C-alpha cells in the first residue's frame, strides 16, 4: 500500500497539524518508506492470536470513592497561553 500526498494531507487534518508543501512532500516519502517496512508484519499468520494492548494485563483497578482536594483553579490556569480569572480563552468558535 503506498501513500500519496492527499492521504498525507487528510491525516494532517485529523492530527491537527498544518504542514507546508515541503513538509507534505517529505512526509509522503518518509511515511511511505516506513509503511512499506512495517508491511513485513503481514508475513505472519495471526488469525488465532489475541491482540496484546498492554504488557501487564491487569484487571480493572478501582479507586476508593472519597473526596480529595483537586488542583486549584488558578494553578490550573497558570500555564494557559490565554486565560481570564475563570476560563481558558480561545478564538470564537461560533459565528463571526
Amino acid at each position, binding site marked *: 500500500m503506498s501513500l500519496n500526498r492527499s492521504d498525507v494531507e487528510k491525516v494532517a487534518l485529523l492530527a491537527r497539524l498544518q504542514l507546508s508543501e515541503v*513538509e507534505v512532500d517529505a512526509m509522503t516519502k518518509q511515511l511511505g518508506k516506513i509503511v512499506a517496512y512495517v508491511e*513485513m508484519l503481514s508475513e505472519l499468520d495471526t488469525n488465532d492470536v489475541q491482540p496484546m494492548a498492554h504488557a501487564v494485563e491487569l484487571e480493572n483497578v478501582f479507586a476508593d470513592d472519597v473526596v480529595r482536594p483537586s488542583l486549584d483553579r488558578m494553578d490550573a490556569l497558570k500555564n494557559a497561553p490565554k486565560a481570564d480569572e475563570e476560563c481558558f480563552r480561545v478564538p470564537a468558535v461560533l459565528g463571526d
Partner: protein
Amino acid sequence: MSICAHSATELKNKIDSGELSSAQVCRAFLDQIERLDEKIGAFIQVDPDQVLRDAEAIDQKRLRGETVGPLSGLPVAIKDNLCTQGQVTSCASKMLANFRPPYDATVIAKLRAADAVLIGKTNLDEFAMGGSTENSAVKQTANPWDVNRVPGGSSGGAAACVAAKMAPLSLGTDTGGSIRQPAAFCGVTGLKPTYGRVSRYGLVAFASSLDQIGPIAANAGDAALLLSAIAGHDALDSTSSPEAVPDYVDVVSQPLTGLKIGLVSEHHGAGVDSEVLSAVDQAVKVFHSLGAEVHEVSFPHSKYGIAAYYIIAPSEASSNLARFDSAHYGYRTDEATMMAELAAEKSANPKGEAESPLIRMYRKSRAEGFGTEVKRRIMLGTYALSAGYYDAYYLKALKVRRLIRQDYDQAFQQVDLVLGPSTPGLPFCLGEMADDPLSMYLQDLCTVGANLAGVPSISIPCGFSKSGLPIGLQLQGPAFAEAKLLQAAHMFQSQTDWHQRHPELP
C-alpha cells in the same frame, strides 16, 4: 581522587560517615558541570543556588540529629520529561518551553522524600522521540567519549552527565530503548524496570503501554540504590504494580549460583557490528568463568519487533500528544497573524469552505510547537489508527506484540536471563542519520522487545571499540527480575573494569 570520580554508593558512605557534607558533594558536581557542560550539553537547566540550598537543608537535618533518607543528599539529574513542581519541564520542545507543572511526578516526590538533591534537568530527544538527542529543540548533546558523536537517546543528557561525572545518579525514561541505548553509547549502566515497577505519574506520556522510568549510574550497585528509592506501587498510576519491592541495595552484591543465561541468537549475527559481537563473546566468557551456564536461545519474532513497535508507539503517541491543543497549556501561535491569514484566504476564495479559527489555532500552534520527528510520529500513529487502516496496522501490531511476548515466556522457561548486545552498532556521528528516519529506527533492534513484552532489562559496559567507543551488553529478565539483573550485572562488574573507565575530558 576527586569527589566526582567516586561512585554514588561511595559518596553516600562518605556523607553518612561525616567525611563529606551533601553541600561539598553537590558543589563538586556543580563545578564539574560549570567546567564541562559547555562542551557536552547534557543539562538544559541547572540552578546552582537552589541545589546548594537543598543540600544545606539536608546537612542541617543531619546536624539536628534527624533521620536522613537513603539518598543522603546525593545529587540526582532529572530527565526533562519528568514534572518538577514550579520548575520548567520542557520535554526539550518549543511546545512546553515555558511549562511549569503544578505538581511533582511521583518519582520526584520519592527522590525528595529520600533526601536526594535535584541537580538539574537533562536534555532529551523532543518528547523522548529519538535515539540520538539530536531531536531536542533546545540544544545538542555530545558523547563524552567523542564529542563528534551522539550520546544516544532519548535519555542522551541523562547518560552523558553520568559518563562525564557531572552527576553520580540520573533518571531516564525508556519507551523502546531510551535508557539502555544511551547508557551503552556513553559507557554507563542503565536499567529499564518491568512495566509497572515504577510509577509513571508525572512523566509526560509518549507511549503509555511502553514507557518506564529507570536509573542511570556508574555501576549496578548505584543503579540499585536509585531504583530502591523510586520503585513501588502508586495510587496515582493505576498501571503501577502492587508487587512487593525487594531491597535491591541489600541483594545486589549477593552472587547468583547456578545461573542459566541464554544468548539471543537473532542478535548475534548479521546486522550487528563485528566489534560489538566480539565484546559480547568476551562477556559470555566472563559469565562462564563465574560459573554461569550459557546457551543459545531463539526469539523467532525478534525481526518483527521494530515494525510492531513503530506502529504501536506512534499510535499511542498520536493519542497522548493530542492534549497539546494550545488552549490549556503550551505554545500558541500568534493569533493576530493567524486571523489575518484566515481573512486573506476568505477574500481570495469567498465561496470556499473556510477552516474555523479554533481548528486553525490547533493546527498552526502544533505545526510551530512540535519538531519534525514528533510530527512524523503523530502522523504515522494517526494514519495507523485511521478508518480503514486500523486492522491492517494497529491491530496486527498488537497481535505480533503477543507473539513477541510468547518468545520471552518460552525463553524464560529455559534460562534465568538472556544476554546480547544493547545496540547493533557503535555511537554514530552527529548528523549521520538525520535525513533517514528508518535507519535511525533500525538502531532499536535489540531494545524494543523488552518494552513490548514489559520485561526489565539492563545495559552495562562490556568493552570498547578500537576507536575507543564504549560497547553495551544487554541483560533481560522475566517480569520483576530487577534484583537478578542487578546481581548478574554486579557479578560481571566485579570481574571487569569497563565500567570504571572514564572519558578523557579537559
